[in-house]
């Protein structure tokens, strides 16, 4: 497809606590063997969009590590392929500024965006897990004659309310976008259209709009392009009807993981391949006396204890007599004999010593920071 994919690798704000202290949102582990960015990135690749720019802001070492040259996504290419775009600055004083908003981030990377040959741009965040048919989306964008197509969903997708901070979109009866506001009221009535943060736009128009907004000191795509230009531009909506998980806080993160324990959800999420970094680890080993149920186990794990309703990432060791329930355990963490965990998120490279007990609650899981020894 004649499309440049743009992925914002960071959230402008999130409440992910320790989970995003050392890493950008895009490289947050998910569902055992994946990182958040694998979902939008695989979506692009599955729809034949092989020219993808990832806008990075800070703490993107783990992201670069994960993506490498893009081999696993088949994105090492002479034409297009994967590019990670770190912040750029011309002078030393500019360099100190963080992006003031998504428009600023686009402007800061326009030198690279401009050079690609694609005619259209599809933008997405890395805070959402979904499987969207970008081909149909683009077709509809072209057919409708829209300047911008904003993808929304009306489904709460298991979220109790529209995620707080999400943008609620209003369209008129002809389907033209009118107005938006930030969800602060925890709306849960069905039929509310909220923005997925996925947009389609002609690249040339994006270039113009970004340049204009920057000249006016306007930095936020939703407010300063969608809302401000709703009268001038033909902005239309596209309703996405598939599954969608939104991750912006620890509870949401836990819930998103837990969704993968439902077989219906797994079927939908893995209907098309989700690519991720290959680790060359051995298959999971189960030893005598282990007891595992309703759990995702990744390769390289060694399981001697009990695992229930949990998601275990690659290379995790769970000792004899240990019990892991309702928890998310990230890569290479070691859980020694006799440990009891319930509603816990263990980050990478954690060691939990013999017989420790940690108990959180579904609405407030315990989070153990990367590399901790408990």
């Amino acid at each position, binding site marked *: 497809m004649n499309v440049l994919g743009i992925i914002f690798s960071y959230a402008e704000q999130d409440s992910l606590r320790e989970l995003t202290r050392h890493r950008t949102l895009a490289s947050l582990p998910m569902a055992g*063997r994946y990182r958040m960015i694998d979902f939008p990135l695989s979506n692009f690749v599955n729809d034949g969009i092989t020219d993808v720019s990832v806008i990075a802001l800070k703490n993107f070492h783990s992201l670069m590590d994960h993506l490498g040259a893009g081999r696993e996504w088949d994105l090492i290419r002479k034409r297009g392929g994967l590019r990670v775009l770190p912040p750029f600055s011309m002078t030393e004083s500019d360099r100190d500024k963080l992006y003031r908003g998504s428009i600023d981030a686009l402007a800061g990377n326009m030198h690279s965006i401009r050079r690609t040959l694609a005619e259209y741009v599809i933008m997405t965040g890395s805070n959402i897990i979904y499987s969207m048919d970008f081909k149909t989306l683009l077709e509809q964008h072209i057919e409708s004659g829209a300047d911008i197509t904003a993808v929304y969903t009306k489904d709460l997708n298991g979220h109790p309310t529209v995620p707080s901070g999400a943008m609620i979109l209003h369209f008129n009866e002809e389907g033209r976008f009118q107005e938006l506001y930030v969800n602060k009221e925890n709306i849960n009535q069905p039929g509310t259209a909220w923005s997925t943060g996925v947009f389609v736009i002609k690249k040339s128009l994006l270039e113009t709009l970004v340049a204009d907004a920057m000249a006016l000191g306007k930095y936020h795509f939703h407010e300063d392009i969608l809302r401000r230009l709703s009268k001038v531009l033909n902005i239309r909506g596209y309703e996405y009807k598939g599954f969608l998980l939104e991750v912006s806080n620890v509870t949401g993160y836990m819930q998103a993981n837990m969704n993968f324990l439902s077989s219906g959800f797994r079927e939908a999420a893995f209907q098309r391949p989700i690519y991720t970094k290959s680790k*060359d680890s051995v298959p999971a080993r189960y030893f005598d006396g*282990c007891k*595992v149920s309703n759990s995702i186990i990744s390769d390289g794990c060694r399981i001697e204890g009990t695992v229930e309703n949990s998601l275990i990432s690659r290379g995790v060791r769970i000792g004899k007599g240990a019990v892991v329930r309702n928890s998310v355990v990230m890569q290479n963490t070691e859980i020694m004999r006799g440990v009891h965990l319930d509603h816990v998120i263990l980050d990478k490279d954690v060691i939990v010593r013999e017989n420790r007990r940690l108990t959180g609650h579904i609405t407030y899981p315990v989070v153990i920071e990367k590399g901790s020894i408990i």
Partner: protein
Amino acid sequence: MRHRQKKEMIAMLLAGGQGSRLGVLTNDVAKPAVPFGGKYRIIDFPLSNCVNSGIDTIGVLTQYRPLELNAYIGSGQPWDLDRLYGGAFILPPYQSFQGGEWYKGTANAIYQNLEFIDMYSPEYVLILSGDHVYKMNYNQMLDYHKGKNASCTLAVIQVPWEETDRFGVMNTDEEMRVYEFQEKPKEAKSNLASMGVYIFTWEKLKHYLIQDELNKESANDFGKNLIPDMLVNDEPLFAYEFKGYWKDVGTIQALWESNMDVLDPLIPLELDDPPWRIYTRSSNLPPQFVAEHATISNSSIADGCFIDGTIENSILFPGVTVEMGAVVSNSILMPNVTVEKDAIVEYAIIARGAQIGQSSQIGQWKRVEKEGMHRDISVVGEDITVAARSVVPAGTVVSADIEEVSV
């Protein structure tokens, strides 16, 4: 035109074997492409050994159904063999100005690729086969070869004396210099068996390959012709003793056993060995899911599996499904096998994509006499469907679908 870098040693891997003793498992693939150890293929072992030993140029000689192997090796990337200079090359027979011919024997296969080897002007050439499972540092063997100033160094391993008649046996002096080579001897003088791993000084090998080719009566085989010729000419041939796990997986029984060895902590074939990783082409499947009714013990389970039954002492390759009530024990389930509800699979190798119907029994066995007696391995071929409630006795090879019996 391109700056071509000289390579100290390149490897030539003889992957031609059809492996007919593996029966239905090699109908569609060459033996080196047979799955092993829960996610690997046999050829991953020599390839990974090469890469871990710093050898980055490997010619893979094949003429039997190379398609699967060709697609499997691809650009060589999974083994870090997608090199700009060097890498992995599939080398089939070809036609030249003078016409072409199939590979006649192992030595002839190398002879037909002299030009390939000369492209890299190596000092040494490592000859490997694609039939064995082992982890070995060929670089240490090269140091030994250099130290001995040998023309050829043959890797050997001690085998039980009662099995020497199955191997090529090296008789050596106390310096490990080989003075005699016995092919499958009735009365062996030594229990050092050739592993089929040779390092040759290229100049010497080239000389003997050309001589061998001129001899119209030669079978053009390393073991039968080339090595004996070198001995006759008093070339310095040395044996290099390898001490570790090494297994020829050329029979169903051996393939089953060596897979089971992966589950045995006492057997020194540790696959989870970061400094000596075994690389393989990954399947890119979701992680495995262990459901409500699963019971698993002493087993290795790969990505993409769905387990709701009982698994004991078994190896499950990627994408296997075992439904509720099913029991899999002492078995090897290759990729994408499905074992339906309440089926029982014991002491079996189930090939890729086979479907074991509900309540059927594979490897059924009447526990007649004493425990622990030898139990024959059953095999179900690739993409075979075994209908519900079928009974397949132990030791049976199923090479066609088993239809449902109307009751």
